[in-house]
């Protein structure tokens, strides 16, 4: 059954440092998890900080229903992410989850491209895992600034063909994700594109999808005060007016967004 949103103290059972500023936390729930859908996120409380006041939102990177854990992929960018990434194994984090809507999971066999950039890859792992369950054919394109930022490739390759680009050319194809050959002639082989990453990247991806009339869903970030639809701070402009990224999103079909692409 789809899990209701809840606030729980989750136990940190592992904290894996991927590189200088990327960590994956595995968090254990005190009660059996309900079903968490790919694209949903969690809102984490940052303890012991004089400057972090609000919770910090993170995609649910993966769910292990056997171990009863969720994983969070954290890129350190400020005080909140630094505190969370440096948490001790055995300590507890107060987590509000699962929040938001989810990516559409096609029932039929489809040919799907996932495009992730930066910490945006975090929302694609759970999605890839789910997609192959329905025998979809998945390709995963990951863009990063440079080779050291390309992490978890082995993990992703369990669920599909992995392609990479780096801005400085230190790994994969040099350039932005849309410079990669998958965005070439054969792009229209894909039936869907799902993307998460910096907004300019998602817009470029959405433009390519539009040109090729491919269904495109993106997961948006936004500055959030609550994460569950009550503050109305996290709006995205859609053709149906302002929508909340935390409840109506974070996943939107790009044909709903008022993006100039």
């Amino acid at each position, binding site marked *: 059954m789809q899990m*209701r*949103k*809840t*606030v729980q103290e989750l136990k940190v059972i592992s904290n894996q440092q991927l590189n200088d500023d990327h960590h994956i936390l595995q968090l254990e729930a005190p009660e059996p998890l309900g079903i968490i859908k790919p694209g949903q996120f969690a809102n984490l*409380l940052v303890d012991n900080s*004089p*400057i*972090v*006041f*609000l*919770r910090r939102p993170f995609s649910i990177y993966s769910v292990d229903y056997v171990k009863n854990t969720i994983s969070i992929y954290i890129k350190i960018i400020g005080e909140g992410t630094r505190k969370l990434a440096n948490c001790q194994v055995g300590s507890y984090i107060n987590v*509000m989850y699962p929040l938001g809507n989810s990516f559409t999971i096609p029932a039929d066999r489809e040919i799907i491209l996932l495009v992730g950039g930066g910490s945006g890859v975090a929302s694609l792992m759970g999605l890839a895992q789910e997609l192959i369950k329905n025998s979809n054919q998945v390709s995963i394109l990951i863009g990063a600034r440079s080779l050291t930022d390309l992490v978890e490739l082995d993990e992703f390759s369990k669920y599909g063909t992995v392609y990479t680009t780096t801005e400085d050319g230190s790994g994969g194809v040099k350039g932005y994700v849309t410079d990669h050959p998958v965005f070439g002639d054969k792009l229209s082989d894909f039936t869907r594109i799902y993307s998460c990453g910096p907004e300019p990247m998602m817009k470029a991806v959405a433009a390519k999808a539009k040109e090729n009339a491919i269904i495109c869903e993106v997961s948006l970030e*936004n*500055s*959030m*005060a*609550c*994460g*569950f*639809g*009550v*503050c*109305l*701070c*996290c*709006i*995205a*402009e859609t053709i149906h*007016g*302002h929508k909340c990224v935390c*409840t109506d999103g974070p996943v939107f079909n790009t044909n709903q967004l008022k993006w100039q692409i």
Partner: protein
Amino acid sequence: MADLSIKIHNLELKNPVLTASGTFGYGLEFDDFFDVSLLGGIVVKGTTIHPRQGNGYPRMAETASGMLNSVGLQNKGARYFATDIYPDLLKYNTNILVNVSGSTIDEYIACAEIINELDHISGIELNISCPNVKEGGMAFGTSCASIDAVVSAVRAVYHKTMVVKLSPNVTDIGELAKAAEFSGADSLSLINTLLGMAINAETRKPVLATVTGGLSGPAIKPIALRMVWEVSKSVKVPVIGMGGIMNATDAIEFFLAGASAIEVGTANYIDPLASLKIIDGIDLYLNRHKFSSLKDIIGCLHL
């Protein structure tokens, strides 16, 4: 269990903990977390006669022990509220107040008239203090004359409990409170947010699309407490206090300063169970200090 009940004009609150407008949605968003009927009351999102898209994005900035928002009264309008949201609220067994706003006095009146027809709505909180709209809002709340104009006009059409919500962005809140009382307020609530601003030094841009926004959270508690204290000395109607209340101790401070009830705002974002914990904490405090009733501590600050 101490007696936590309290009367605010005609409202019989089972306990003095309400939730602040704009921080609790319509209550429905909290159903997953707890039984909202346990609250003393809910003040739903700011409602206007016409639907409003609110302000542009970004609408939020985190600040030291607080946050700025510039939502700007996004809502689908009073008629939509009455037809599409109100029916869902009938399930709640607690007081529901609608926070009413407008750009002109006629808009306030029109909105209040619609709400007046809704049986299950116990009262309105007249918002003359929203800092995030270009017209109306706070402008009404900063002079005695404009307060009198809008409060009397709404009083003429609204027949249940009318709480008037004051702005803290004023020189003399005691005077303005008296004006609101004189013009027919059954109760006063305060404070709304303080007008503030945040700048991103790296991008050299304001953080909020509207440049300025409303400050809430623990940062403003000392100012809120002072204003509640001043207002409760200035008027006879009951005062509902808010501003930075995060826990039961904060709530107790507001009762001591003179508030008969409190509203929990920004705390709801950080801990959706905050209001429930505050109810329990108030009870514990009263028991520990051997008070049988909440009424024993309201305004009982030893000077």
